[in-house]
């Protein structure tokens, strides 16, 4: 139940970080240059993927800790 609870909290926390902190990022405010807009969007995608990888690593770590503690 602990792992499920942590996963639930991480879904909340992750969506908060992505949609409140990452999505509003605007490195080049007011620009109409497609290249700069593309790089701005790319940065958001990279940061979101990075967060997802962290989520996966936390889950794997929790699983390993649980198995080691019980065995």
């Amino acid at each position, binding site marked *: *139940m602990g792992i*499920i609870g942590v996963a*639930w909290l991480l*879904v909340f926390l992750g*969506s*908060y970080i992505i949609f409140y902190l990452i999505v509003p990022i605007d490195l080049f405010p007011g620009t109409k240059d497609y290249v700069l807009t593309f790089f701005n969007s790319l940065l958001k995608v990279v940061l979101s993927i990075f967060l997802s990888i962290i989520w*996966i690593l936390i889950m794997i770590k929790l699983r390993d800790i649980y*198995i080691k503690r019980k065995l």
Partner: protein
Amino acid sequence: MNQSDLILLASVSFAFTFSLTYLLTLALVKTLPKKGSVVEDHHKQGKPKVAWPGGPAILFSLVIVESILYLIYGDLRILSIALVTIIAGSIGLIDDRMKFNRGIIKPGLLILASLPILLLRTYNFHPIFPIFGSVRLSIIYPLLVLLAVPIVSNATNMIDVLNGALSGFMVITTIPLIFALALRPDHAIMVAAIPLIASSLAFYIFHKHPSKIFPGDSGSLALGAMFCAIAIVGRVEIVAIIAILPAILNSFFILSSIKGFIEHRNIKTRPTILLPDSRLAASENPSAPATLVRMILIGGPLSEREVVSDIFKLSAFSAFLAVITTLVTWCV
């Protein structure tokens, strides 16, 4: 549609699906062994033969009732649910009969099951998140739809390892989904979700310990795909993710421990061991996959019934968290 009509339709939908699945499963329990369509129950001494696959009973009753509901409501979203269920169930039926040996084939084919949602445009690319509401994901959302059906239906398939686990799990997991659809409110999809719970419950009567029938991939994929389709067209994606967390984590832990897609029948090192007293114990082999059942058994050997009961407790906990998520999303 007024409230009394809605309650009547929901009740009739439940009763009809339940009766249809019950009668069809009963027929399969009697006819499949005569045709030699049986498999061994590996978690029991003597490995008794059990009728298989019971999926067609689930698939047929779900599709019949969803088609009737589509005719009543004329809502394309209900048609999407029916089509997704048919395609996923058919892929499962092919797998039951022909056995896909390469693990990636089934998830790959299940992408086809996502297509009705995309082609009928019954998705909304503004998923609703708890606390901060809907967000616009116009480009990435259709890609997520393509991935969601294979992921969820494979996750439900992977939890189908013990007597009654899948059908009971689906009953518990669908409750918060119906609660969220009632609270949104989206009555058409709420009524369309009721057959899922009714069919799972009717099948559970035969699937519970000791099983008289196994659903096979046709049953598990159809149930998982339908759950996913309801979540997408009903815009209750986050609630669905939370509700189905035990299955998602189970498949994630398996995939991360065996490092890739593989059919469960092709896993060389078994995650559990059957003891002489019929109890199950966790394998201590480090290369054994870290399944949910193995993690439950790490605390000590348990009977099959006790393990299934623990899976239901985890599902109930997830369902509780999904209900909290629903309340936070639509009441705060």
